[in-house]
């Protein structure tokens, strides 16, 4: 219970910081809307509905992935500013609770963007999914968690690096390839109705469990690294 209370303490603090600054969400919203509008202008989704269905899953996750990267860097920048990170290093509370609180906060921020993006995406790409839409209730959180759990970890890993903004995508994207493949295929399966997404969802779930466990176990070492 104490551990969960500490996770909640970090989560609540991150939500409060974001509510007051709106740094992460504003940046992500602008970026994802830009990607959505630019791609909608690049080809005519109403003229090629099949092509639009086949591409939209990939487009959605490209936008979310790049947008999430900006939020992940912002979330650790708050800890680096004023050397707050040293206060966490000196703290008696478990380091992994800080990681989990921050990852959950990032999950909420990206989920807010997904909620805002869903109607825009549907209208711009004239989407009428042919598969079972209910699977998206699993695919979206699992895919988002895959991005934020690794992203939160690798953003922390790059904190002492001078090129941390470049380093995060360079490390995060290759490691996230299995999750990206799974989430894009599962989303495309739902939108086109050509295949069932369950296999990809199972793969996503496995990826999430493995990487969440590894990140929680390794985070204390990353936090206390000199």
């Amino acid at each position: 219970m104490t551990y969960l209370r500490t996770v909640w303490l970090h989560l609540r603090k991150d939500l409060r910081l974001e509510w007051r600054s709106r740094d992460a969400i504003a940046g992500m919203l602008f970026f994802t809307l830009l990607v959505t509008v630019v791609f909608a202008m690049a080809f005519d989704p109403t003229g090629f509905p099949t092509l639009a269905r086949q591409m939209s899953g990939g487009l959605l996750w490209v936008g979310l992935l790049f947008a999430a990267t900006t939020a992940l860097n912002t979330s650790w920048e708050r800890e680096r500013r004023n050397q707050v990170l040293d206060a966490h290093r000196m703290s008696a509370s478990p380091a992994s609770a800080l990681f989990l609180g921050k990852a959950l906060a990032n999950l909420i921020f990206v989920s807010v963007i997904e909620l805002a993006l869903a109607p825009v995406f549907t209208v711009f790409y004239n989407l009428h999914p042919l598969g079972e839409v209910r699977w998206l209730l699993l695919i979206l959180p699992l895919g988002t968690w895959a991005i934020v759990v690794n992203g939160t970890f690798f953003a922390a890993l790059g904190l002492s690096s001078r090129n941390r903004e470049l380093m995060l995508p360079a490390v995060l994207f290759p490691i996230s390839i299995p999750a990206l493949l799974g989430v894009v295929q599962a989303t495309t399966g739902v939108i086109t109705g050509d295949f069932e997404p369950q296999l990809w969802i199972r793969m996503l779930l496995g990826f999430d469990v493995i990487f969440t466990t590894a990140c929680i176990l390794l985070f204390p070492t990353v936090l206390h690294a000199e």
Partner: protein
Amino acid sequence: MPTTPVPAPAVQVRIASKLYGSFAALKRVSCSFAAGGFHVLLGPNGAGKSTLLRVIAGLITPSAGTVTTLGGSPHNQRDRIAYMSHSPMLYDELSAMENLRYFSRLQHPGATCDCAGSPEMALRAVGLDPTLTRPVSQFSQGMRQRVSMARALVGDPELLLLDEPFSNMDSAGARELVQLLLDFRTWPLSGAAGGLTVIVTTHQYELVSDVADSVVEMRAGSVVTPRAAAA
């Protein structure tokens, strides 16, 4: 004839070195700081004061030598040590009370109340109003230093480590801070029998010369003179 038992030092550093590549930030440093005292680490910029303080805090590990803090490894004493750097270590967007509540609960994760050194009490102790709701980013440098001091005290530490607390302060503000530090030596909530042990790094000796129990002078990563202060 009975002899008075000598209290164990709060901090004991033995032949500690810290290397960054080929650069030695600390060179075979040995010193000790008595429990319950007000100690000063003196030296110019680049002398290794901050590095030594971070080693004592357990924030960095020495490349060689040993450090004993409060009778054990500094890594195992995190709930008994408070560290304050020249940065305030606060969240700019939060108010002073919000910052203090957050750090207080982090320092005492199992506590169900703020009773062990309440944030209100710590803020009042540094002369600030706990009802101030504006974010600390709107505070003056002196007020931020005071909040930072309250953040350090709210964990009810036995050892208080302060890295250049007087930097960016005018002389009047710095003297007020010294007076506050002296008051905190008898911080009523401290569990330490001899009271709070304070170690301050500074290059402004004139600020602390009258009040220091001991002074360790450093230069180029080495201890030059461990000596009793004039006071």
